[in-house]
């Protein structure tokens, strides 16, 4: 509770400081790490449900589900980031994100451990992503921001949802 109150304080602090520069992010957890995505890209949050597997695709592309009549692919972010696998439980969450340009929007779901919070971030306080070397790819990370002493990695939704082998489309 105390933490939440503190969070709120920080949010307010950001708001009062510069309303124009504030951007809201939805933060979620993968293991002990915390990530954030632009909240305007989030369409909905759902619980995990079994997917239909797609043959011969990278393992982090779990499969597709029926989302009110459209076929939506589900990516596992843990596997995408090469983190240890976690069992899917009823508490596992799928965040449905929008990507692509306005003419051709795509929606995709990403599996995360849990969603944490909505955070307001001052654009000027976003740090560039540091270079972790070759072991950890930082290509999806837009920047880092510190919220309440915790580090939140802000993800670039478009890059995250850019599927590999798109050039295979025309064979």
């Amino acid at each position, binding site marked *: 509770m105390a933490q939440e109150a503190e969070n709120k304080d920080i949010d307010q602090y950001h708001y009062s400081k510069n309303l124009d520069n504030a951007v809201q992010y939805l933060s979620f957890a993968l293991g002990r790490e915390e990530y954030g995505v632009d909240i305007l890209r989030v369409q909905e949050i759902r619980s995990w449900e079994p997917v*239909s597997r797609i*043959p*011969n695709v990278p393992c982090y592309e779990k499969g597709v589900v*029926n989302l009110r009549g*459209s*076929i939506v692919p589900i990516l596992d972010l843990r596997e995408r980031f090469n983190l240890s696998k976690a069992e899917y439980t009823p508490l596992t969450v799928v965040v449905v994100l929008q990507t692509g340009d306005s003419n051709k929007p*795509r929606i995709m779901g990403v599996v995360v451990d849990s969603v944490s919070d909505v955070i307001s971030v001052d654009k000027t306080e976003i740090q560039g992503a540091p270079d972790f070397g070759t072991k950890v790819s930082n290509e999806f990370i837009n920047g880092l921001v510190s919220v309440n002493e915790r580090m939140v990695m802000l993800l670039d939704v478009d890059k995250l949802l850019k599927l590999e082998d*798109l050039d295979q489309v025309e*064979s």
Partner: protein
Amino acid sequence: MSIDMSQFHQVFFEECFEGLEAMESGLLTLDMGDIDSEIINTIFRGAHSIKGGSGTFGFTVVAEYTHIMETLLDEMRDGRRKVTQPAVDVLLGSVDCLREMLTAIQNERDVNNSSVAKHKAALEIVLNGGSMDESVPQVEHKPASESVVVNAAPDIPEEESGDLEEQGWKIAFCPYLDLLKTGNDPVRLFRELNELGELTTIVNIQDVPAFYELDPEECNISWDLKVVGDISGDDIREIFNWVEGDCEMEIQPLAKPIKSAPVAKIIDPEPLELVLPSNPSPKSAEAKPKVAAEIKKSDTQDSDNEAAKAMAKASSIRVDTDKIDTLINMVGEVVITQSMLGLVGENFSMDKVGQLKRGLAQLERHTRDLQQSVMNIRMLPISFVFSRFPRLVHDISSKLDKKIVLKLVGENTEVDKAVVELINDPLVHLIRNSLDHGIEMPADRVAAGKSETGTIELKAYHRGGHIVIEIIDDGRGLDKDKLLSKAIEKGLVEENSILTEKQIFELIFMPGFSTAEQLTDISGRGVGMDVVRRNILSLGGNIEIISELGKGTTIAIHLPLTLAILDGQSVAVGDETYIVPLVSIIESINITERMLNKVAGKGETFRLRNEYLPVIRMRRIFNVHSGNPTKSKEGVLVVVEGQGELCCLLVDELLGQQQVVIKSLEANYRRVEGVSGATILGDGSVALILDVPGLVRFSIR
């Protein structure tokens, strides 16, 4: 109370485009000898409602422009003015110009003022000058009539007359993104240019996107070309004839001799100056900001493309009220059945089972009917596509100096909207082919003992679950021997191989063939035919050619009626369910492991009535690990046919037949090999639909 007018814009634009279509077809049917006043009335009404609408919505540029057209048409209607062919041509050009203006406004782009001014000038000349031929000075006459003929590429300056010869030409050639999809290959054009004179090319690749965004089917490159030599402008334009409308292009003489320079200068700015003072109000010039000129060409091109995409997205269809009434009836029936079932369920006892079953049967019938009538709404008459061809034929035949009549048959045949949208480009290509290469010049026709006027027949009809579109010309036909010798020369066919007539005609669809140097008699017949065929195959159809040398050619396209629903057989592979399209299934056989013959290193075959067919193990090809492994000892072989090849799919179990609604996998995801789409099963889960030809290809690899 203020009303947001923008909500009506979509309807306005639709009505305008409909009006324009009516005007166009009216203008084309006008018979010079015997003028039907009713047709002129129709054209007039079209112009009048566009004028009224655009006035209401504040599109003054359009309103002013149509006003001039209206005045002209009004005089024709009252009989004060004779209807002449030049006047009709100018009006046709105006229709194009209006369409351009409206598209620009619809996509919130700037109207191309110079082209509008050019057409306006042409109109006013007709209006003021009475009949075109006497009173109009030569210089002004030219851009007017020319702009009508080559309306598809208004950017080409028309100043150079054919016999004016230059030392060389500079060509800025900037193809639209979809140039390649229309089957045109710039390399071929350059090769031809090179034959005319020494060609230097400068490639602009600044518009090429990053690699991962690159679509290999899009042409992101533009060229600056320089041809040195004693070449006439007509020769150059002749080469670019085929890409007209698919590119932005500017042809300029390299070193301008003194005599042509002034001519070149007069024409372009002249009509502008000529019109603006006579303009009733200067608003049109002010209405659109002048930034247009500052926007780079490539930018406008991009926005064009995006706007086109956006338009396709927001497309709407007009539906016959009858169809909606049936739909409402159906829904009513469903509601009644539902309440009946509700009653049965309320106080259910075993003696009501019969009633329940009857109710369910009724519900099933009603839902099927409902589905059918909803699908029906998506059906459009093929005339949506056909209606633009009279104009195409009119324009091209007059450009080629050929006499050609286009006959349309079965325009009311209904097809799925998606098919209507996608069939257009292939058809344009095929008709152009027929016009350009199929039908001979009038003199040649007479010499061959045919009537001077060639006929192209465009025919649509239903056959089975398919729609067939035929393009029939009575031109010179395909020369089998020449095709074959060319194919052998190109190394596409083994020498001395014996091919059936059908196989020989199929050759023109081969990709290697299309890039071939032009053949003398059947020149260009192969250009882009591979693209046409690929487009049609991707629609789930096929294309065939019947031709007789000297008599003509028939190209028949078979397409599925709808792309949205499919009869499928669901099969189980491990824990997973897949759908096999029923049309591709020949038969299904229960087998045991022993019935398969192993071919060392090459997989397995199955002997079906003295024929060995390759077996595709679905488990292996789709990496399925779930399910009971002991069961893999035996399974069901589904014999399928994909693109003429028979093969067997080994699955675990057949589940049942059902109609499935095809959902795109690509909308949010991507194409997956061996899979043509997805569908949603009764329990809400997703099942993949197998792409049988793709699977066969995939398994071979």
